[in-house]
């Protein structure tokens, strides 16, 4: 049985960043990848998707964007190439086409079973992706037959195909459930294809693409908001389930918020709260969720301005003043019901989030690994119930930016530091 000090599961940006730190510390390891490097970017995202983050903000340990468009946004194919280039440059010991089936504990570490070899290791770092399997809400089961369904992204393992592009949908109306980055982007391009889109809107995180001439994520990075730490943020449980920022990466740097969707003809309705007798019941809370999002983005921009007047004065001295936030417009009357049997809606796109697929950890047995929602318990990526086991790439794992490519560097550094300390044993 082959033996290494550390097995890393997953060769996306997180797993590779961990690999780089392990190599730098001289810790022998292998990176097991079920398909190929950057698999999710190859296979699990819709055609037009680009990164939400500007090119310069994809810094990995010892690697960064070297092209001539630092303010642009990579297409999925470019992200794949970028991550592949990283794997080559750091000479990561990737075993592609190796699917982990079970992780088990032994007296002195772990056995990692795969569809190829079985590995022994003292430590295991799970970097299998935080956004792999679509999360469908209970209401999905109550939708009447006869409609087409798509999930916004993910592996489609729940029997629902993943959305690719508008041509992939039948003619007719489309209900997009969820105002996440995925939801608003898909709503926008499907509406542009001539299909009437209805967007069901619950809580969301509104963002302008640019503020005072700079990418909003430049502000998040420069003002330190992305570095907010998991052990200092006031309500971590909530921070970890926040919907994704409403952003789109386009060459024109457009802001795609609910107002832009309304102008494009998308119809906004409240959160999909239930389905009764084939009729979708839409929450009456729409005006409050848009108010919450408007107030929140105003607070965020004020945080940027305050930083610009103090620590950020030098960096921001030539920037124009801030633009006011346009309140989110809602029609006078918003329908509370939508008859799903009338033929008006032909397709439902579920942009209701993705979750990690950590089924191979269930072989660890009765350890208190999972919280009551079935999410893995960890302290900043350290799975305390099973010493030597780590996770990375989950929402707000250690910092606000933990799920960004740019968040992997710092998180991987912290986790490998902890892992090295664990290997060294009690001081």
């Amino acid at each position, binding site marked *: 049985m082959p033996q290494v000090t550390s097995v890393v599961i997953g060769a996306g940006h997180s797993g590779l960043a961990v690999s780089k730190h392990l190599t730098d510390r001289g810790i022998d390891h292998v990176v097991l990848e079920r398909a190929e490097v950057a698999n999710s970017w190859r296979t699990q995202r819709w055609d037009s998707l680009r990164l939400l983050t500007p090119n310069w903000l994809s810094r990995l340990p010892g690697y960064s964007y070297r092209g001539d468009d630092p303010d642009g946004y990579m297409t999925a194919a470019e992200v794949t190439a970028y991550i592949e280039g990283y794997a080559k440059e750091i000479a990561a010991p990737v075993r592609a086409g190796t699917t982990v089936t079970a992780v088990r504990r032994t007296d002195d570490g772990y056995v990692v079973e795969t569809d190829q070899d079985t590995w022994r290791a003292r430590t295991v770092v799970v970097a299998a992706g935080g956004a792999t399997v679509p999360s469908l809400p209970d209401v999905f089961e109550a939708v009447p037959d006869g409609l087409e369904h798509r999930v916004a992204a993910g592996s489609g393992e729940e029997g629902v195909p993943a959305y690719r592009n508008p041509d992939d949908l039948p003619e007719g109306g489309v209900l997009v459930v969820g105002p996440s980055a995925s939801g608003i982007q898909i709503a926008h391009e499907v509406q542009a294809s001539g299909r009437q889109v209805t967007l069901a809107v619950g*809580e969301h995180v509104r963002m302008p693409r640019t503020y005072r001439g700079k990418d909003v994520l430049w502000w998040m990075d420069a003002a330190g908001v992305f570095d907010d730490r998991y052990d200092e943020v006031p309500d971590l*449980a909530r921070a970890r389930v926040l919907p994704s920022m409403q952003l789109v990466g386009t060459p024109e740097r457009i802001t795609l918020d609910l107002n832009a969707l309304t102008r494009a003809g998308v119809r906004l309705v*409240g*959160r999909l*709260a*239930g389905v*009764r007798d084939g009729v979708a*019941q839409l*929450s*009456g*809370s729409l005006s*409050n969720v848009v*108010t*919450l999002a408007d*107030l929140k983005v*105003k*607070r965020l921009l004020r945080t940027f301005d305050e930083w610009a007047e103090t620590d950020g004065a030098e960096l921001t001295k030539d920037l124009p003043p801030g633009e006011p936030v346009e309140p989110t417009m809602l029609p006078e009357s918003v329908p509370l019901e939508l008859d799903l049997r009338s033929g008006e809606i032909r397709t439902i796109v579920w942009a209701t989030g993705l979750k990690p697929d950590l089924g191979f950890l269930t072989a660890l047995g009765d350890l208190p690994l999972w919280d*009551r929602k079935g999410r893995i318990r960890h302290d900043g990526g350290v799975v305390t119930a099973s010493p030597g086991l780590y996770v990375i790439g989950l929402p707000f794992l250690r910092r606000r930016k933990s799920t960004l490519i740019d968040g992997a560097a710092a998180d991987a550094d912290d986790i490998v530091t902890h892992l090295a300390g664990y290997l060294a044993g009690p001081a």
Partner: protein
Amino acid sequence: MTSTETPTVDNGVNVGALLDARKALADAPEAAQFQWRAETEWIKGTHSRGTVRTFRGLGAEQEHVSTFTFDADHPEQFAAEDQGATPVEIVLVGLGACLTAGIASVAQLRNIQLRSVKATVTGEHDILGILGGDPEVPNRFTSIKVHFDVDADATPDEIAALVAQSQKRSAVYDTLTNPVPVSVDVN
């Protein structure tokens, strides 16, 4: 904005206890399962009296410190004796009370001193529905509006955020804006 030497904010809400409860109940979700109860007894005509005394929660039977009663009736314009508020008005009272309690709690948490909070709750209602005069008209309110006048040591946006957050955490607001299964049986 006023500034004082002692920044202690007191809206009369024990936020520490509520935060402790949130943490404790997240670890013991069964204790968070509450049942709220009201008994209603018909008196005469459209007059009834509701009584609230016990509830279940924290894994045990609980009791209010005293029994509360609520008379409900209909006004003289409905040819009734007007012995109490109408049930629909009691719904409005519940919504206003729930949001107001939320504002006080959130303000305490955010260290904002309240001086006054007043909610004016109005519900638009086409009574042809309940009278059976037009089968197309639903029985429910067609819309509800809540207007808040809040005087507090805070900016207008901070006050707007208090009001928005109170809706986000309000049981009555959520019950009114989202479907809830209601079953009614008889012995």
